[in-house]
């Protein structure tokens, strides 16, 4: 009898524990929430979300930042990085559950179009007018317009390089060794004799390192055909054309010609044979001494950036002229999510990232003395004994935030880098579709099918592994079956409607 009671009690206790644990946490988190709330009746807290790894000294950075910012805009700040691998899932969850956050990093290649069309982020025009004076003075109005969708600005573009020129980067020591005359290289095909020399004389060194997501056929062609449609990049405008006719990239003669060249090179052994399966960045192979060159998007300071990535001196040759497309102006932006309860404060903080040197550099690089030390005016370096892999504040994403031109420079970057950026931006040719964003909602079904078709056919062609004369027709058939004609029509009609209001 006693045993029975005991067991009954055990079962009931179990259920009690279960229900307590479910509700108990609620009270725990409620109490921590309420303690935060009591703070927020005085000062509000802004949560800033962006992709990246969590630095070890994030709490200290947040405290320092909050203390400074509180005086200026009466709000505290919490920077909250989320791992790249989880970013999309976590964002979806936060939006779906209505979780509060105030500033969100976004980009055209990071679902910006969808974020606008599904109401995840709010229009910012009036907020920028009221609280974003700094933004307006810094950003070129054309660039601001570049972030517009349907006539409204939904995100503030980060001020950085806005154009790109395409080219090839090579190991300087080998260029010097064989005395290659880089001034003779005007088109990609001109590289052939150089690659041949490397192949003949340098055993174990791949002349041109390529992978399925990054090859001249994906990168350099972008200097001639500009992607204006959905994410698989199939709907393009020809830069050289004066009109705005949308073309199927795969059907263009440019694509076929580059593909033939890549295939020629692959068969001659100038391209690494594992190009279709590896996923490492191209510079890794150079870092390990196994490759000579790879394609690159040029901007000022690119050579020192790639030298950092590969650990050896690199030289570049430019193949296309600098060009500013919508994708360039929308490659990094800050938006305010629907979930924010303090959009005015959020905009004020974004404004600070455009005007206030302390705020921006703390967000970019962390705490002075701990994460960096000042070498001279505007130039910083790691403290002694600290390297890029051991520095506590290691997000290394200054291209994401505010006005990059007021951030500090590192010793390996040219001292007048920002001046070079401004020149580069202003001299670049501007796309006729600058400011146009495609909304894929009406063709979601086709987009999913096209993504899968591209995943199947593109790797073999862009790496040169397969014969384009055989594959491209198959690719085109598959695209047709997946609905490319419908998406091209949709892009064209949206583009035409946009052009009318943006002449």
């Amino acid at each position: 009898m006693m045993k029975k009671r005991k067991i009954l009690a055990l079962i009931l206790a179990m259920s009690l524990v279960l229900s307590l644990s479910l509700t108990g946490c609620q009270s725990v988190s409620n109490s921590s929430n309420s303690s935060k709330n009591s703070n927020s009746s005085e000062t509000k807290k802004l949560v800033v979300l962006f992709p990246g790894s969590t630095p070890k000294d994030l709490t200290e950075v947040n405290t320092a930042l909050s203390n400074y910012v509180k005086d200026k805009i009466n709000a505290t700040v919490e920077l909250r990085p989320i791992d790249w691998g989880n970013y999309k899932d976590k964002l979806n969850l936060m939006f779906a559950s209505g979780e509060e956050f105030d500033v969100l990093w976004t980009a055209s290649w990071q679902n910006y179009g969808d974020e606008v069309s599904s109401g995840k982020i709010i229009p910012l025009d009036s907020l920028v007018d009221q609280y974003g004076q700094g933004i307006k003075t810094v950003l070129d109005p054309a660039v601001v317009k570049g972030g517009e969708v349907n006539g409204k600005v939904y995100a503030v573009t980060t001020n950085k390089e806005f154009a790109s020129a395409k080219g090839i980067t090579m190991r300087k020591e080998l260029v010097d060794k064989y005395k290659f005359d880089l001034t003779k290289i005007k088109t990609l095909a001109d590289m052939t004799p150089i690659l041949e020399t490397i192949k003949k004389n340098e055993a174990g060194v791949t002349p041109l390192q390529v992978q399925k997501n990054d090859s001249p056929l994906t990168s350099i062609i972008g200097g001639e055909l500009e992607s204006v449609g959905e994410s698989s990049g199939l709907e393009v405008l020809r830069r050289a054309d004066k009109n705005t006719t949308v073309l199927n990239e795969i059907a263009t003669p440019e694509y076929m010609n580059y593909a033939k060249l890549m295939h020629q090179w692959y068969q001659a052994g100038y391209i690494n044979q594992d190009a279709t399966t590896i996923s490492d960045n191209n510079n890794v192979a150079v870092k390990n001494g196994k490759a000579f060159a790879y394609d690159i998007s040029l901007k000022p300071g690119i050579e020192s950036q790639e030298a950092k990535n590969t650990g050896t001196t690199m030289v570049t040759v430019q193949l296309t002229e600098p060009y500013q497309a919508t994708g360039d102006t929308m490659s990094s932006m800050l938006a305010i999510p629907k979930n924010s309860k303090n959009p005015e404060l959020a905009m004020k903080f974004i404004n600070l990232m455009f005007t206030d040197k302390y705020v921006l550099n703390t967000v970019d690089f962390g705490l002075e003395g701990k994460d960096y030390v000042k070498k001279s005016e505007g130039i910083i370096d790691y403290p002694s004994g600290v390297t890029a892999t051991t520095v506590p504040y290691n997000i290394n994403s200054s291209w994401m935030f505010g006005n990059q031109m007021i951030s500090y420079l590192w010793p390996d970057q040219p001292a007048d880098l920002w001046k070079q950026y401004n020149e580069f931006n202003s001299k670049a040719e501007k796309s006729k579709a600058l400011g146009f964003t495609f909304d894929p909602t009406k063709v979601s079904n086709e987009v999913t099918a096209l993504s899968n078709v591209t995943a199947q056919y593109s790797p073999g062609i862009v790496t040169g592994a397969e014969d384009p004369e055989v594959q491209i027709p198959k690719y085109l058939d598959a695209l047709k079956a997946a609905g490319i004609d419908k998406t091209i029509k949709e892009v064209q009609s949206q583009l035409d409607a946009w052009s009318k209001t943006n002449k």
Partner: protein
Amino acid sequence: MKYSRGDSKKMHNISKWKSTRKQIKRYRMLYLLMFPGVIYLLINNYLPMLGTIIAFKNINYSKGILGSDWVGFKNFEYLFTTSDAFIITRNTLLYNTAFIIINLILAVAAAVMLNEIVGQRLRKIYQSTMLLPFFLSAVIVAYLVYSLLNPQYGFVNKFILAPLGLKPISWYMEQKYWPFILIFVNAWKNVGYSSIIYISAIAGIDSDIYEAATIDGATRWQQIWSITLPMLKPTMIIITMLAIGRIFYSDFGLFYQVPMNSGALLPVTNVIDTYVYRGLMNLGNIGMSSAAGLYQSAVGFILVLSSNLIVRKISPDDALF
């Protein structure tokens, strides 16, 4: 008093109900035992099922989930209208059918064979090592397979084909080998884990039965065939039915990572889950991903119900319900 037929049926029902109530009262402690588990399933599984409405809506966050528009079956279209629909469905079904059959045979065989090993120590060692591959994540497995099948430096091309004078095979471009490769990798990874259930089921068999059979002169093989396997039947049936319920789901790591996401292999490695992943990668549409999940569940559900009906006809005690 005269009772009509209707009356007697009603009285039969009433007395049935009365005896049921009596049973409930008699077994009330059993219901108490079930209580925590039922509550948990209600909260963890049934409550979220209300969210299936997402599959039928076009979610706009400024209206909120409840306020968003209904769009009927529009979110499901992409799974059927695509030219790849047949391929991904075929791949998913064929692979899972092969997995179910092969893994069942191998897991039962492994359990039965282990039971024949004399010596506890050796038995434990063999069984533990069989489990080891289970612990390796899909990414690591993909690297290991790559070290074997790399067209230039891979073990197979370099140390097996070359010495034999055969041409190197570009493994990640040739479709025909991959069904076998994936079935093998899947078995290698999972048989150790799957066999555990059967091992523990065998451990629950009363050894007196075997002794009696030996006395009767049955050989070991006959004993396995007529004692062990039939005693494993209920377990085999339930494992198979559960697997059938998940027949439209796939192990993402196996089909995405192990083939190194190679485009040329897609016609034989693209399954519903990888198709949805690749397709929705750049669309943030939770309505469409929710629709895919509902589609996969619905098909599995229908198949399980059908197979349960069949099992009920053949051996009613083993049916699930």
